[in-house]
């Protein structure tokens, strides 16, 4: 029964929301603006980035950073679709949204495991 699984999805949503609230702004500012515009100088050259990311703690951090907020997105997007009138198949909407988050999580794991 779907109802009984709600606490699981909600806990991932809540954890993802907290992670996003704490870390998304600084991460976006760093990789999306500072580094992308080249303002970071030598701190994010290929060699340094590789060294930094290869550290197991970094990879764990990145995994959490990517995976949990994806579930946060999935949960919110699921309800937003319903709010916007997509009521015909609540189970399908939920399946697609959480499915995407699960897929993102697997991809993140695959990428990070190879460093």
């Amino acid at each position, binding site marked *: 029964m779907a109802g009984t699984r709600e*606490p699981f999805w909600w806990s991932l949503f809540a954890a993802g929301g907290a992670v996003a609230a704490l870390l998304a702004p600084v991460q976006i500012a760093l990789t999306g603006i500072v580094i992308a515009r080249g303002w970071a100088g030598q701190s994010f050259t290929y060699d340094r980035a590789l060294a930094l990311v290869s550290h197991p703690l970094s990879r764990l951090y990145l995994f959490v950073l990517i995976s949990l907020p994806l579930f946060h997105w999935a949960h919110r997007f699921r309800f937003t679709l319903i*709010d916007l009138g997509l009521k015909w198949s609540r189970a399908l909407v939920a399946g697609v949204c959480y499915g995407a988050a699960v897929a993102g999580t697997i991809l993140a794991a695959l990428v990070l495991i190879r460093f």
Partner: protein
Amino acid sequence: MPDPTITLEIFRYHPEQNETPSFRRYEIPYREDWVVLDAINYIKDHIDGTLAYRWSCRMGVCGSCGMMINGTPRLSCAAFLREYYPNPVRVEPLANFPVERDLVIALDDFMHKLREVNPWLIRAHEQPLSDGEYRQTPDEVAAYKQYSMCINCMLCYAACPVYALEPRFLGPAAIALAQRYNLDSRDQGRSQREAVLSSEDGIWDCTLVGECTVACPEHVDPAGAIQRAKLASTIDWYKRVLMPWGGR
């Protein structure tokens, strides 16, 4: 100088006479210390006896006179004309409910949901009355007191878009009331209420818009009650899944 007046635009609908609602304008004397309910009573008494609405205590505690006033759910006995004057005031029945007639909404759905959450003290063992009261310290009273203040005025349902879209949603007041008993140190019925709270149309439908809490005239904070219920349910769920042998 002529006496000041104010215009009320009132939602009118009569099931025997109309297919769709309309608005009717009434110009009435403006008095600074009048609330919207006073204005509506003036209309009923002096201009148009056919206007239907509910009211009783006119001091914000019976919960009868909730209306949409300029689009916001308010108790009409606590909304002063001076907040709107000199602009017209638009009065409609509470949003998200079927309209019985004029400003009267149908409450059947809530009355049903209220019962669903088992809003009474549940005890494994009743202590005989001759043994006196159950002890409860002021701190223990404070733990649930806020959620016991709900007057069932329905403003929170009128403010809730989730309820607007999914009328099966248990809704703010009913969930807050369930929490009121769940958090009462004398109560032992949380697991009985859990089935309803955690059902498909229970707490998980809430997306924390938060407008129920904004609308609440009694500072009950139903939005908070629902989030706390979610957290408690989640902790229970993990306990069950991770420690199936733990029992309760």
